[in-house]
């Protein structure tokens, strides 16, 4: 019985690698991206610009500059698509930002903790031990990375569809000045990043909801439900006093980046609201998750 001689004392100090959090983040990103659900969401997002482009192309009979200013009453950019395919990028982002993009982010964020809990994998991550704060940070970082990825998928799909279906070239800003195609591309990238940043609030909200339940489906449904509710409330004039605090209120301000000079006020207000949501709901998620009994 030599094993009985093993005496338990305090474990020797373990030396965590400073890079291990990145290893967990990499694992998390790969795990998320290998889900069929994630790929389906990205596929839907990639299809939207193509559908918009094809619809505009069919409606205008394929003749460039045939759209005219009336252009169907869609987002401000839609009339210009036939002149310049780059405008499909702005149109597609304006079309997906109110619902498709935040819905996709809500699904990923809502699933972040609750999905692991309902699969039972959360307890094994925590006894690994991943550490609750670190796991939450990794989950939030992954969700934000998905915001960027989803936005870029929309933008790139729109750019490709725009280049195939319509002519490219110098473009006219909302203010009426001309900018080169190269500068237009840079503006498109900037807009995509601002759109991605607009989703940070939904991501934080979804993560918080995700810490409240052990059901991934419930967390996703609640987050998407909140998204729709806020969008509806944002349309009710009597609520205008609180509307500036809705995460979606300044979303479409990204169009101001197409002015010359750029009108920053609402863009900055939007980023401020997103930061506020990230701080408030990020803290709430942390407080909840670090104190929670993991019974699933």
């Amino acid at each position, binding site marked *: 019985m030599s094993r*009985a001689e093993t005496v*338990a004392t*305090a474990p020797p100090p373990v030396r*965590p*690698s400073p890079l291990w959090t990145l290893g967990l983040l990499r694992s998390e990103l790969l795990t998320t991206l290998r*889900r069929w659900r994630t790929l389906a969401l990205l596929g839907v997002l990639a299809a939207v610009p193509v559908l918009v482009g094809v619809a505009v192309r069919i409606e205008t009979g394929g003749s460039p500059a045939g759209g005219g200013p009336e252009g169907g009453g869609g987002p401000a950019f839609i009339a210009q698509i036939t002149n310049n395919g780059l405008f499909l990028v702005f149109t597609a982002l304006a079309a997906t930002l109110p619902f498709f993009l935040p819905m996709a982010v809500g699904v990923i964020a809502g699933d972040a903790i609750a999905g692991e809990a309902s699969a039972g994998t959360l*307890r094994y991550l925590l006894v690994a*031990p991943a550490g609750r704060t670190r796991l939450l940070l990794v989950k939030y970082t992954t969700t934000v990375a998905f915001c960027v990825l989803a936005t870029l998928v929309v933008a790139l799909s729109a750019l490709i569809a725009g280049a195939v279906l319509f002519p490219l070239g110098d473009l006219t800003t909302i203010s009426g000045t001309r900018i080169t195609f190269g500068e237009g591309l840079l503006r498109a990238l900037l807009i995509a990043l601002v759109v991605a940043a607009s989703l940070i609030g939904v991501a934080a909200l979804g993560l918080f909801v995700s810490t409240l339940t052990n059901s991934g489906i419930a967390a996703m449904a609640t987050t998407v439900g909140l998204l729709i509710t806020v969008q509806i409330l944002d349309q009710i004039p009597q609520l205008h006093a609180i509307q500036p605090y809705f995460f979606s209120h300044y979303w479409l301000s990204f169009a101001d980046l197409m002015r010359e000079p750029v009108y920053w006020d609402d863009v900055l207000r939007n980023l401020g609201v997103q930061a506020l949501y990230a701080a408030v709901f990020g803290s709430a998620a942390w407080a909840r998750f670090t104190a929670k009994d993991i019974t699933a």
Partner: protein
Amino acid sequence: MDAASAARPPEPEGAVIATRGLTKRYRGGQLAVDGLDLTVPAGSVFGFLGPNGSGKTTTIRMLMGLITPTSGTARVLGSPMPGAGRTVLPHVGALIEGPALYGHLHGRDNLLRYDAADPTADPRTRRARVGAALDRVGLTAAAGKKAKAYSLGMKQRLGIACALLQPRRLLVLDEPTNGLDPQGMREIRSLVRELASDGTTVFLSSHLLDEIEQVCTHAAVMARGRLVTQGAVADLAAGARGRLTVTTPDTAEAAGVLKDQGAADVVTDGDQVTAEPPARDLAEVNAALVAAGVRVRGFGVRRASLEDAFVALTGEGFDVAG
């Protein structure tokens, strides 16, 4: 720490798990674990027994830092849980309430992910360690299959492999042979013995009493949130007395002779008569049977099993156990 637990004796040196007055009351008011004083000696294979709802799982979750105790303390490897989880848990391999896997990932990728979650795991040796763990549970051939295609037994093996990714000082295995065929059960039991002989303490919960008897050196029994008993398996089984069993075609006569010889609680079942052995030389009892013309086919004392001890302690059968 409340006054009651402060008055408890200090925990013994060398205990891998030591709880003092460990209590968990859930929000609904349900008392799941009530004043548990559990001591798991280093190097032991410790069987943790109890029927469904007796508080075993809640105890294991408190030991692993997943649930915060309402009161009392739990020390694992000498450090308080859940506070010292980050330093303690890398030395602990755990299978808690069955395996949980990412169905859309391959078996190997599941282990790579869990290993990535461990801050002390060296990424450079990750693939080799995952390969060794898969080999140890006999899953190498199925490592490239998606986990959702695994059978229950394969999932169980993968869960055990996850606990073996690093050299551990403590293994917590909750129902490790669940879903395995008899051959798989034997393999896991010999794996447990092998690990224990390397000096790893194994904390094993099971509803299979013969499994506990076969592999465990120590055991504890829980019922209704309280610890009924704990100690060496041999001592526990010895606490329950064995029964004298006589196999004979002449059961009526045999029963009469046994009563005359001072045996209590004589029960006839088929061609067997069992009784509590009287306090005298059993050779004389046998001689008396033969002298009375009873044709004895078999005579002996059936050793008390852990099950007898369990029934004696909890007053309930093991049918409800989980």
